């Protein structure tokens, strides 16, 4: 089971490395969306500092959603996915590996980029750490929940917009708690409970999502 998972992760990372433009596009989208907000609401530093966590979180959420459609579609088109379904390794494990690879490709760059964007918003230093840490805990949950939607909309017409409609309401708790972590830290209260909540969401999603993704993939393929 573990060799299979390692193999899938390695393969997906290699594929992403050969097509660096995909990751760059998503990252650029993240940067552009986050840079548009100051242009829209005005450059008032206090206002920017207040909206920074929310804006960066929403931008990260949208950017990670953009890359969701690609999670299974290439494998579906060339038949790899069918082989994965037929493989002797448990499908849940393969799916978990694919989600992990997806997060490494599209979640981790966002987390690394976020502090730079937060500087644009003049977030003080301790809050930068809190924001980065909250994204580090939250983005895997986004990948896990999003993968369910990606598996359900595989090969369905109008997939991209439909995916957004399915997945965004389910993202609400992550967004609320993730951005809330920074707000609480900014208010001078301990952010510990919020980190624990994010961690709890991650654990629950990691436990149930691979199973749901596997079921959804079987439905889409048959």
């Amino acid at each position: 089971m573990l060799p299979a998972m390692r193999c899938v992760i390695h393969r997906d990372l290699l594929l992403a490395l050969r097509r660096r433009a995909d990751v760059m596009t998503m990252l650029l989208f993240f940067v552009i969306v986050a840079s548009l907000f100051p242009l829209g609401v005005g450059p008032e530093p206090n206002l920017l500092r207040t909206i920074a966590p929310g804006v960066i979180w929403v931008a990260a959420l949208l950017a990670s959603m953009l890359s969701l459609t690609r999670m299974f579609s290439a494998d579906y088109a060339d038949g790899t996915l069918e082989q994965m379904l037929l493989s002797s390794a448990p499908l849940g494990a393969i799916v978990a590996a694919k989600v992990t690879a997806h997060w490494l490709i599209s979640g981790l760059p966002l987390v690394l980029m976020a502090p730079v964007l937060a500087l644009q918003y003049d977030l003080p230093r301790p809050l930068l750490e809190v924001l980065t840490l909250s994204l580090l805990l939250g983005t895997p949950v986004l990948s896990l929940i999003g993968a369910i939607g990606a598996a359900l909309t595989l090969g369905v017409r109008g997939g991209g917009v439909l995916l957004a409609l399915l997945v965004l309401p389910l993202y609400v708790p992550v967004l609320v708690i993730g951005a809330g972590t920074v707000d609480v830290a900014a208010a001078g209260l301990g952010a510990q409970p919020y980190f624990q909540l994010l961690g709890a969401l991650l654990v629950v999603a990691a436990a149930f999502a691979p199973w749901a993704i596997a079921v959804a993939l079987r439905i889409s393929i048959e």
Partner: protein
Amino acid sequence: MLAPWFGVLAAAFCAAGLYIGFFIAPTDHQQGEAYRIIFIHVPAAWMSMFLYLVMAFWAGVGLMFNTRLSGMMASALAPTGALFTFIALWTGSLWGKPTWGTWWVWDARLTSELILLFLYFGFMALQAAIDEPRRADRAGAVLALTGVVNIPIIYFSVRWWNTLHQGASVSLTSAPTMAATMFAGMVVMAFGFWFYSIATALARARCIILERERATDWVADYARVPK
């Protein structure tokens, strides 16, 4: 077959409920006559949440036992559930305007009700996008079950978010204690909405069954010999 009877029951209970609500129940001393929208608002909100649970239940049954009818029931329930969610939001904002002074506040209940509406729409959009009915049913079932797991999480996260961002300027929970007739009116209306839901869901399920089984003999017979 039973659908028209439930429709009649629904009409009767709604009429009774509205009568109690508008003519018998006393005027609220704080909110005046405006509070009377409660007789539509609260039962609709109850139904909106309850129907999602029923829908997810049927979806789960369909996924577990691979029965065809349960998937049809789930997709027949979704539009009614979305309708009640919309009614609850709409009447809520109509009620909010005279009593709170705004059409909308980012209150925990309002927000989670809005997200519930999005979940209903997502379910219907997914089913509409997939041509093959069996796949649509099962994909919708996975989505409905994911949603049901998420609903409590969404509700609590929104509640925390709300308490974090703004003080308790308006609170739905500290409603004045209710007169018995008001409560009776609400319960009767709830029954009316119940029967309405059953009637529409059954009628819609019947259409879905006929549409999907149109290749079979019994549907051909049924179409040829109107009862």
